[in-house]
Structure formats: structure tokens, C-alpha cells
């Protein structure tokens, strides 16, 4: 089942069209990376899903329920973590979560149990101070706790790791991985290593449209290059190879790049075995998210 479906979403601010025909489908129990440059429209898209912004046209369904601007009941399925979450500074972390539980109408016993469990999960179990004195990382963690409080079916995080140090980032990513069993996570980011670490699915957003989306593994396969890296022990072998396969590119002292477009990799391997060339390395070049991102955003 699809947890979130966005079809043909348009949104303009003044004369600037931020989203023009955004389509996005987020399957249940995925960790969905929503990737795009700053200003690509990630936050706008997310806020529209939450009913905080009015779409010019297009439809959004969360768990099968249509999202309307303003007072939207689809929000009951969603937990939201904004890029810079702001809480009431005069409360302590447990007080804030209790307040959240009360406004969502949770039962007292359930609320108190959940509150304790979540504060432990995000590592704020022993925190007695008011939120006023919290660091950015602590606020981000409290943000995840409040977003997960009423066990949402969809957790939307807007660049949860962008402003954090490496330790803080790791903590947030670990928490997101942990909660995957219970919920679907949609998170926007431009930090590609984060995506590579935890995401199952991705969508690349560029200039207000989703350029490509799907399972991370499928996308990697789709964009897999037909290039191989080849490394030998000595110069003589390199010369032999270049003579036989002039289309190869030399990229280092003993390294060559072979592209399958002209001849198959098996031809190369046959030649290597006939000539008794000792290979130190022979590997298929995996596309990195970075190269994918570049390819998608520069189209």
C-alpha cells in the first residue's frame, strides 16, 4: 500500500513557481529519501502535505485520506519534524511530550508509558532542564520523540540532520532506522551519505519536479555504468592492454578504465587470460549517489 501519494502538485509563490507538477509515491514501511538541492522545493512539498501551505493544484493522499489546506484530518496519521523544530521553551521535555499527548487525546496511562519509552529512545530520559537550554541536537531528538508520540503511520522529517555534528547525525539516523518497523519515514536531505546509509527508496527533486524515483537499488541498477576499473602490476601489461583495446582510458600509473559499450567485458577477460596478465583489481564501477545526483540535477 502507498502511504503517501502526491499527483501533479503545483505551487507558486508570487511569480516564482516552486513546484510544477510534482508526483511522488511513498510505499509503506520504507525509509524514503527526498533528495534535492537547497531551494528545490522539498520543504514546500512537505508543508503542503501537512496542510500548512495551500497547493495551487494537484492532489495529496495520506493513508488514503485526502489532504485539504488548513484544518486537515489527514494530519492524524502524520508525525512531523520540521528542519528547525521549536518547542515551548518554558517546558521540560517530559512536560512538552505530555502536552502533545493531551492535545492529541491520548489516554493518560498510554501517554505516560509512551512518553517514557520515547525519551529513552532519543536519549533524553534523564533530562530535567527546561527546553530553553537545549542544544540543537537535543531539540532535534526531542523533535523526533514528539513526532513519534502518537505512533504515526508516516513520519515526515525535513532535513533532520543538516544542522548537526557527525555524532548528532549518527544518533538521528540510528533512531530513524530503529523506528522503521513501526512507521514509514519520509525525509528530505541533501546529505547523500545519510541517504546511502538508511534509505530504501529515493526521489530526486529538481526544479520543482521529481526527476526520478524508486527503490534505491533499482535506481542504482538503472544508472549503473558499463565501466570497469582494471589494475595490473606492471607497465608492460598496461601497454599490451592498450594496444589490444585502444578504447581504454588510462587513469593512473597502473589503472585503466574499460567501457563495455564497444566490446564485452568477457572479450577483455579472455585476452587477459590468454596473455597471462596478472590483475590486481577488476571491478565494476558502482554509481555513487553523488554522480546520480549530479546527473539528475544537471539534466
Amino acid at each position, binding site marked *: 500500500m502507498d502511504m503517501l501519494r502526491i499527483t501533479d502538485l503545483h505551487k507558486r509563490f508570487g511569480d516564482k513557481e516552486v513546484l510544477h507538477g510534482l508526483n511522488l509515491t511513498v510505499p509503506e514501511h520504507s525509509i524514503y529519501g527526498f533528495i534535492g538541492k537547497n531551494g528545490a522545493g522539498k520543504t514546500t512539498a512537505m508543508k503542503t502535505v501537512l496542510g*500548512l501551505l495551500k497547493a495551487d493544484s494537484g492532489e495529496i493522499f495520506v493513508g488514503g485520506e485526502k489532504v485539504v489546506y488548513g484544518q486537515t484530518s489527514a*494530519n492524524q496519521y*502524520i508525525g512531523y519534524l520540521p528542519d528547525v523544530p521549536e518547542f515551548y521553551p*518554558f*517546558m521540560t521535555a517530559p512536560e512538552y511530550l505530555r*502536552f502533545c499527548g493531551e492535545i*492529541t487525546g491520548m489516554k493518560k496511562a498510554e501517554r505516560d508509558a509512551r512518553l517514557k519509552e520515547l525519551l529513552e529512545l532519543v536519549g533524553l530520559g534523564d533530562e530535567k532542564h527546561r527546553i530553553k537550554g537545549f542544544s540543537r541536537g537535543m531539540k532535534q531528538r526531542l523533535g523526533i520523540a514528539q513526532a513519534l508520540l502518537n505512533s504515526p503511520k508516516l513520519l515526515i522529517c525535513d532535513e533532520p540532520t543538516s544542522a548537526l555534528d557527525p555524532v548528532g547525525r549518527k544518533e538521528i539516523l540510528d533512531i530513524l532506522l530503529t523506528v522503521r518497523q513501526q512507521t514509514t519515514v519520509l525525509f528530505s536531505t541533501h546529505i547523500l551519505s545519510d541517504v546511502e546509509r538508511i534509505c530504501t527508496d529515493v526521489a530526486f527533486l529538481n526544479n520543482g519536479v521529481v526527476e526520478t524515483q524508486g527503490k534505491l537499488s533499482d535506481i542504482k541498477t538503472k544508472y549503473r555504468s558499463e565501466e570497469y576499473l582494471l589494475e595490473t602490476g606492471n607497465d608492460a601489461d598496461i601497454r599490451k592492454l592498450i594496444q589490444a583495446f585502444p578504447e581504454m582510458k588510462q587513469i593512473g600509473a597502473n589503472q585503466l578504465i574499460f567501457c563495455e559499450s564497444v566490446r564485452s567485458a568477457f572479450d577483455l577477460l579472455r585476452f587477459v587470460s590468454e596473455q597471462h596478465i596478472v590483475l590486481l583489481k577488476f571491478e565494476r564501477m558502482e554509481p555513487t549517489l553523488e554522480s546520480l545526483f549530479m546527473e539528475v540535477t544537471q539534466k
Partner: protein
Amino acid sequence: MRSLFAFIKKEFTEQFRSGRLIILGLLFVLFGIMNPAIAKLTPWLLETMADSLAESGMIITDVKVSALDSWVQFFKNMPMGLIAFVLLESSIFTKEYTSGTLVLSLTKGLERYKVVVSKALVLTVLWSLGYWLCFGITYGYTAYFWDNSIAQNLVLSVVCWWLFGMMVVALMVLFSTVAKSNTGVLLGTSGVVLASYLVGLLPKCSKYLPTFLTDGNSLIYGLVETKTYMPSLVIAVATGVICFAISIPIFNKKQL
């Protein structure tokens, strides 16, 4: 219902922990004590100034003060109390817009009208508590020093002033749902009150305007009939109700 109570509780906690509740309390208590105190001290003040006044040709004879002087002070000081109240509470909505704290509550499914109702209720309670506390203190001291019974229509005059304050509260709520910052709230609220005051300078219009309600002196001296206050009373209440009623649909469509 539970979510409404939770939000109201949060509002009061905020008022208390931010110190605003205490400041407002002290302010209204101070005003309450000041009103009779100034009336009581007037003869003494004039006496100490008698010499310099005599030099400029004014001769102080026997100065008599009564309960009426204390109530004149009450109506003279109350605008300051109201202004302080508006200044202190003008950011009750807008602070949440600029900090983004409302977003999390609303995305949890809290109905928007509950935000408006909670905050309007808190403002109402604070204004009423402060006002009637001030009234109570002034009444007590005035009764102790003089005789309150010589003030005519005392109840009506103070109720009128309180209702005027309630209308200002409704204006604050309305402008808070329209404006993005508390400057907008202050400008809108004071703009309406100022307009009412200026138009009220025209004798033909004055008795239809809410600012007419602040003229408590005419009532306690018995200079005007009580029914003269009816049109402005009705208009002030209607304005308050309308402001509050339209602030809910406006807030429902507000971009946060």
C-alpha cells in the same frame, strides 16, 4: 475537549512561568492602591504646594476630597492599565507564528479554533482578573476612607469600562489572526480605538462609540442618564462578538 483544556493549561503555564502573570498582577494591585491614595493625598499635596501657588496668585482654602475623587482617579488610571495589558499580551499569538511552535501542535491534529478560543479565554480571564482586582482594592480603600454610596451608578460605570476592555481584547484577538507580528496587532488595535476616540470628538457621534464607555466620571457624578450609555454598550459588545467570530475563520485559513 481534552485538547482544549491542555492548550488552555499550557497558556496559563506560559503566563505564569514567563512572569507576565505576576507583572500584570502587581500592576493592577498598584493601580488599585494608587487611586484612593492619590485622592487621600491631594489635600496634603496642595498644602505643601500652597506657598508656591500663592506666589502665582492661587490661594488654597479648605480642600475636601470624597469617594468621587478616588473613582475619578480610577477612571483616569485605567487607560494606563489597559495599555500595559495590551503591550504585555500583544504577542500572545504572534510569538508562536515567528517561533513556529504552533506548527507542531497543529500538525498533531489540534483543531485551529481551539488555539483561538484558548488564547481569547486567557486574555479575557487575565483582563477581568486584573480589572476587578484593581476595582476591589480601590473599592475597599475608598469605603474605608470615605463613603462609596455617594458615587452614583458606580456598578454601571465600572462594568462599562470593563466591557470596553473586553472589546479591546476581542480586537487584539482579531488583529492577531490577521497580522504576522505584534506590531500589526498593536497598530490594528490602537488604530481602531484611536479612530473611535477621534470620531467621538464630534458631539453627534460620540454616544454611539465604544470609547464613550470609558467616560465613567459622568456616570458617577450623575451628569448623564444611564440610558445614554445603551447605544455604545450595544455597539461595543457587538463589535467584540463580531471580532471574535470572524477571527476563527481567518485563523483557519492562515498560513503558518
